[in-house]
């Protein structure tokens, strides 16, 4: 009996907690429950969620990507540089950013697979490199229309309207101008990654690599290729996050995106606890991101000061990890 209870708790505990949280905030904070508030929560987690989905892919193959935050801010600066200084159209800027993300992922993958650098160290190095690199073209300044360049001229380019549309447009749903574009993109990416990891043979093989790399190799899985692919997916999703951030801000702000890495890693790790998966999974990651968003939104509406936010996120993460690793180990222990 207690075994079944434990099993139930592991499977649905986190989702029940999430529903409980929503019910509590709806009762305690007037205005929390409603489409506008929901759209706001979604918007607040969209970019971290997209990054978290990418890092989930690297976690699946038993790796880790610490460079996602830096890839996102690099994409932010690159898109601004491309449009404001080089005066490219929006499409070119977007393509440049996506290619940059894929390239960084490829380099990460090659460092790990070919040069045998441990994943944490390779991506940590890449993170440093990118944080430094993105400051060099502008001597450490933020990019905005009208800024003075090194040769004394003034940057004439602007963020094009179609680029800003990506970050600022809102789609009509029930209410006019309800759903922001980043949310739509977040949900689409979540769906694609969920299908890819959960239902395709590629996803299955990636999980196999994460669980027993040697065994996966001995059934003929091209292990290295899949690992590199995982890092490239992570790089591309991180650059999408950066593009959306740039489109929302409308300027190449050197200081933004500081929290992206930690928030998205937290979301992916919280995702382990969802449905008792005890492993990285796209659905869990999306729920994990939402969980943090809802908690912060509710607390803000109940006038909790902003500086408590990181503490709350950390507490949720630690609780989720205990939930995942301690309870599941007890469950598998009971199985024998």
């Amino acid at each position: 009996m207690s075994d079944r209870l434990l099993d139930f708790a592991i499977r649905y505990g986190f989702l029940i907690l999430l529903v409980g949280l929503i019910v509590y905030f709806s009762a305690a904070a007037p205005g929390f429950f409603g489409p506008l508030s929901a759209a706001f929560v979604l918007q607040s987690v969209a970019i971290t969620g997209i990054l978290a989905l990418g890092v989930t892919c690297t976690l699946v193959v038993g790796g880790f990507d610490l460079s996602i935050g830096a890839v996102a801010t690099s994409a932010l600066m690159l898109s601004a540089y491309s449009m404001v200084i080089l005066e490219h159209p929006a499409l070119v800027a977007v393509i440049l950013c996506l290619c940059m993300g894929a390239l960084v992922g490829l380099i990460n993958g090659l460092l790990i697979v070919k040069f045998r650098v441990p994943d944490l160290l390779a991506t940590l190095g890449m993170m440093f490199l990118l944080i430094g690199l993105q400051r060099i073209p502008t001597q450490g300044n933020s990019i905005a229309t009208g800024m003075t360049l090194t040769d004394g001229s003034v940057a004439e380019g602007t963020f094009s309207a179609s680029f800003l549309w990506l970050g600022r447009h809102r789609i009509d749903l029930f209410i006019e101008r309800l759903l922001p574009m980043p949310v739509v993109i977040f949900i689409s990416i979540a769906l694609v990654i969920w299908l890819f990891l959960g239902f395709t043979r590629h996803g299955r093989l990636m999980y196999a690599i994460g669980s027993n790399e040697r065994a996966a190799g001995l059934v003929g899985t091209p292990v290295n290729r899949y690992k590199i692919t995982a890092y490239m997916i992570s790089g591309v999703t991180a650059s999408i996050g950066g593009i959306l951030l740039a489109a929302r801000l409308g300027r190449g702000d050197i200081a933004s995106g500081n929290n992206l890495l930690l928030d998205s890693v937290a979301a992916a790790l919280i995702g382990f606890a969802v449905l008792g998966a005890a492993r990285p999974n796209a659905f869990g990651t999306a729920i994990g991101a939402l969980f943090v968003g809802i908690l912060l939104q509710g607390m803000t509406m109940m006038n909790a000061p902003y500086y408590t936010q990181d503490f709350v996120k950390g507490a949720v993460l630690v609780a989720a990890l205990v939930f995942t690793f301690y309870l599941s180990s007890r469950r598998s222990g009971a199985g024998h």
Partner: protein
Amino acid sequence: MSVDALTVNGLQKSFGNNHVLRGVDLSLAPGTVTVLMGANGAGKSTLVKVICGQHAVDGGTLSLMDQPFAPTDAADAIRQGVVTVHQSIDDGVIPDLDVANNLMLDRLVDPRHGLFVRERALRAEAAKVAAAMGIEVDLRKRVSDLNVADRQMIAIARAMARAPKVLILDEPTSSLSATEADRLFALIDRLRAQGVAILYISHRMSDIRRIADRIIVMRDGAISGAFNSKPLDYEAAVTAMLGHQMTDVDVAVQRGISPVLQLADLRLHTLAAPINMTVCGGEVVAIVGLLGSGKSKLAEVLFGLSQPTDGSITINGQRYEPKSVEDAIKNGVFMSPKDRGANAVIPAFDIADNMTLPFLKTLSVGSFVTAQKQRSRTREMISRLGIVCQSPSDGIGTLSGGNQQKVMIGRWLMEPAKVLLLDEPFQGVDIGARRDIGRHIRSTAAGRATVAFMAEIDEALEIADRIIVLHESAVAGEHANQDIDLAALVADISGSVAAPTGAQT
């Protein structure tokens, strides 16, 4: 006759239901090298771990120089004078420290040593130890820069610095080259002359011929043979180790129709003799040999994991040169690897995902895995092999060893193979599952060449039409599995025909 250094009486040890040591008696005399032989799972390692204090005994007694000996832990055993050098050398040395520090490690652990390291004194002391052991390496070199033999010497030298009464060496030559091994043997000779009782665990015949004063053989947790006086009967020792009581499995020997797999002048390494063999369709060939006989290497070559230095392989007359596992599988060569825990099982997956892993492509539409097809194919294989489970979605970890192995073998029976390689298919498998697997492999053998790599003779007798013996990377003999001459087979395995000089030490 002097007092025995170590005496073991009626030693019992179980892990759960697994009765590993069933009343082991053993005595080690000072100044002799006693070789302990035994196949995998015979209980050698457990015996060693009991003697060196890592496991507590369940029954029986140990005594050291006629005094009761009951070490509380590994450190206590060392203090009392029983020192062990374990199989994986890197457990015995600290790679990032230099030679001198490694030699003096015990001094550093000693709480009386004081806080600061007296570098000069430490080096002087280390130099003394190194000289006494005949170690000629730069004491300032990092151990990670040394070769395996030197590391081993250092591990042994450190052990000897405590002037032990009993020294246990667990397969010390398993990663040494011939010249490196010679240096080790010279060291062992010196220690023997100093009156140390040495227990030397190995199943490499060449080592055993070189250094053994006595041979003790273990099988299924008990001593199955003891050879105390020279000349030692090596063949009888191998027989005692492998055992060959006839099993009650009747093999209806197939001759095979047409050749499928052919090896022509294949050399596994530059110094090895060329291997020629042919395996026909419908035939099951067992390749037997001791550890280091080249079995594993041959399996790796056939599955594209390593490259032969010379020679050619053909399948159905077509040249076959696999560069990778993917290549091998594409050519219809499948392999169920040995040691399933490390090499085959995906612990996070259920039975269906584990079983269908190599052939997900054929079970997918587009890239999407069709779960239904996957489950029905798995269910089919579960009933064919008699896997005991609730459903295909049981976690692989919930199955017993035998059933797990059935899943791992079943994985490669999902699609027709041209050549099926089975590396130790009965490893860690109970007798019931072993029969099931053997029967199934024989009944499906038509249309492919099946090659099983195994160490145990009775396993080979149970499954094979033909047994090919490898010794030192060369074919030492070939026997059809019909009225087989076991003595000749054992002689081939121990290499006594190939190396007639081995009788004297």
